[in-house]
């Protein structure tokens, strides 16, 4: 077990190093100059060159790379060119909305997907099954920005049930901030429920045909107990996997939804950082996201241990 975790950690480090390198290279392959952008339209090329010098952008690329990797391994992701703040601080400030948004969206997705998925599998071929499957297809096919725009326009602007955008002003307390996340969470929850629903249904279908389910029934157990205790528990592994992936995806920033609802999270940050050519922020976000991804994957794998006693590492 310990050996397994150590092995996985080493693997994680390799993945993160790879991401780090790719991020560094890709970001620098893109044309565009942060200095010229910051100075505005009337600035001369000479001024841009001067600012590049001050920002350390004129160092040879290999030297920039080495200092970047060295610092990153010590937890220093550099200084944002645009904000003139450490990247770690910039990212930390964006973590709260993104993490809560991811959490709420996942909860909403689970509330929609799991019961319907189980019931659809249980009543396979019924009208509810058919409706659930086609609705899930529809929800997965409609782009989240469209759903976001429609919900924003009709539920927020026209009906006034939710704030239209943002994350609250200076005097917003925790609950007001969370209130701003309700509508975007519903949008993301609906969009992300489709995959979980389909996995739950498929996985339950497999299990419900198994011998032990028949045995459980023949012992005279209630249907409720058979489905939730015996079937669901055994169907859980693929469902947990897809939930883990969905959560990782959501935490890495729901780029479009954050943009539409002007939520100051990681997704919004990374789009702005690309437009501003804020190299350290782009790199920093990619590293954090990659680390989160492998970490959540590891957690998911460890979760199997709890769910299925047969799993051994």
């Amino acid at each position, binding site marked *: 077990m310990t050996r397994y975790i150590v092995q996985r950690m080493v693997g994680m480090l390799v993945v993160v190093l790879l991401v780090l390198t790719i991020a560094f290279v890709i970001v620098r392959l*893109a*044309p*565009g*100059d*942060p200095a*010229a*952008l*910051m*100075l*505005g*339209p*009337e600035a*001369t*090329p000479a*001024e*841009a060159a001067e600012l590049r010098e001050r920002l350390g952008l004129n160092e040879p690329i290999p030297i920039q790379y080495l200092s970047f990797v060295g610092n990153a391994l010590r937890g220093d992701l550099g200084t944002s060119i*645009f904000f*003139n*703040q450490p990247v770690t601080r*910039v990212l930390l*400030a*964006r973590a709260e909305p993104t993490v809560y948004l991811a959490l*709420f969206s996942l*909860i*909403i997705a*689970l*509330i929609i997907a*799991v019961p319907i998925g189980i019931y659809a599998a249980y009543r396979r071929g019924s009208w509810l099954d058919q409706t659930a499957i086609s609705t899930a297809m529809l929800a997965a096919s409609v782009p989240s920005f469209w759903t976001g*725009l429609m919900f*924003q*326009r009709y539920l*927020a*602007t026209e009906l*006034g049930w939710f*704030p*239209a*955008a*943002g*994350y609250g*002003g*200076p*005097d*917003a307390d925790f*609950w*007001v901030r*969370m*209130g701003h996340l*309700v509508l975007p969470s519903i949008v993301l929850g609906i969009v992300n429920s489709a995959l979980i629903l389909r996995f739950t249904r498929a996985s339950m279908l497999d299990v419900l045909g198994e011998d032990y389910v028949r045995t459980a029934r023949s012992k005279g157990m209630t249907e409720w107990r058979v489905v*939730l205790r015996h079937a*669901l528990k055994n169907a*859980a592994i693929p469902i947990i996997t897809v939930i883990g992936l969905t959560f990782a995806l959501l935490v890495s920033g729901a780029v479009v939804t954050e*943009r*539409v609802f*002007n939520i*100051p999270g990681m997704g919004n*940050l990374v*789009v*702005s950082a690309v*437009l*501003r050519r804020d190299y350290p922020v782009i790199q920093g976000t990619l590293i954090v996201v990659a680390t989160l991804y492998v970490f959540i994957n590891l957690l998911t794998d460890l979760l199997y241990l709890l769910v299925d006693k047969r799993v051994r590492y």
Partner: protein
Amino acid sequence: MSISRTWMTSAAAIAIGLSAYSVPAWADNTLDVAIIGEADTLDPMLSTKDVVSIVTQHFVETLYTFDANWNVAPLLAVDLPEISDDGRTYRIALRQGITFHDGSSMDSADVVASLQRWTEMASRGKAVADRIEAIEAVDANTVEIRMTEPYSPLLSLLAFSNSAAAIYPEEVLGEALSAIVGTGPYKIIEHVPDQYLQLGRFEGYQARDEEPNGPAGGRLQLADEIRFIPVPDPNTRVEGLLSGQYDFADGLPAESYARIAESEAAEPVLLRPFGWPIFAINHKDGLLTDLNVRKALQAALPHDDMMFAAFGDDNFFIVDAPMYPEGWTWRNDAGTELYNQNDQARAAELLDAAGYEGTPLRILTSRQYEFHFKMAEVAKMALEAAGFAVQMDVVDWATLGQRRNDPALWDIYITHSPFLPEPALTSLYSATSRLGWAEPDKEATLAAFTTATDQAEREALFADLQKAVFEDVGFIKIGGFNALQGQRAGMTGVNPSPWPYFWNAKAE
């Protein structure tokens, strides 16, 4: 933990969240202003971006400003300067009893140090630095600027909020400011990047006694707080305005005009005219260094089609040749017969005369501003009809900003600008700009224009300059366009401006 228990916990969490949610109670008399993005810096000396000007003018002030008709008017100076007979010495009396946000009072040492920094750090300041012989304190409340030659745009430069000659306390100055401390009617309370910039009324502010007149005159500090909220997505700005979340929103898409006009919550603010799209021409390198090719380009362009394609609705554009719109003192008709020729046959003749052999004309443009791209698309068709080979280099704005600095990479790049109060504020006319337009007769006219001090004489010289723009095809003005902003229904005190200000604004 079983999965079913997770559901219950989750459902409970959501229920708590929903029940506790309530509409935020904003402090009364607070203005929420949605701007197009985070300001790059809070020091207006360091940037020529409009969003920086919009935000910073509330807490940082300059010696001069503009009135509603874009005449220079005093702000931190008592009055317009005394200018010596040879036009080279400006003596500026400073208002007394002005305090900075840190409580210190403003004197000539602060002003001299700030203006020095402006000539060293600001794009516009550096551009005049070699014409400035000295900036000196005469006494505690008077400063003197001595020029090497008369330079009439100086006051406009000192008044402009963009690459601004901002006045800071001497103590905070440095390459970067140690703190953003100004004399403006509002001061910074809190800045959370990408979320809000919270400004509060500065109680120590000394408003001017004159009636408000554009940015000039009294700044009344009607709102207790102003909050600038960066909202990069234009559609989100519209929804936030219509839902009543924002009191004012800048940079709205033209398509939203009807919805805002019909709404009870908000009303459109049409900034007519806002500015002009420009085809900047490369005079340093490549195809367009040949006058005949430039003339062919000018002859071929269908300005009315380009403007229609770009803006769609007559409410939002005008096909108009002069460099300044109707109602401005700089407006004249010199050279305008060469505008909007839409004559591809003549362009073909000019290309023949130039011995054109099919080298592609490279148009560098970006879809960040969709109207740039649409104009380029229409131009391409007309140019190809005239015999040009056209290569469209469509990149994002950051890339364009970099590539245009290298004359080897482009023939035309597309940009736009608001109409600026003084022609010399735009670098397009200058030989030192990235266009490198250095035609000798134009240079002589420009030199005469910037040194002349008599307004009538300056207007006549500007007519000559405009004539040169057309006859030598220095750059191409495509037309005039309007901008859409929006405000809460019944809001008063905001004048339409490319750099809207809110110290006299009051929402219902």
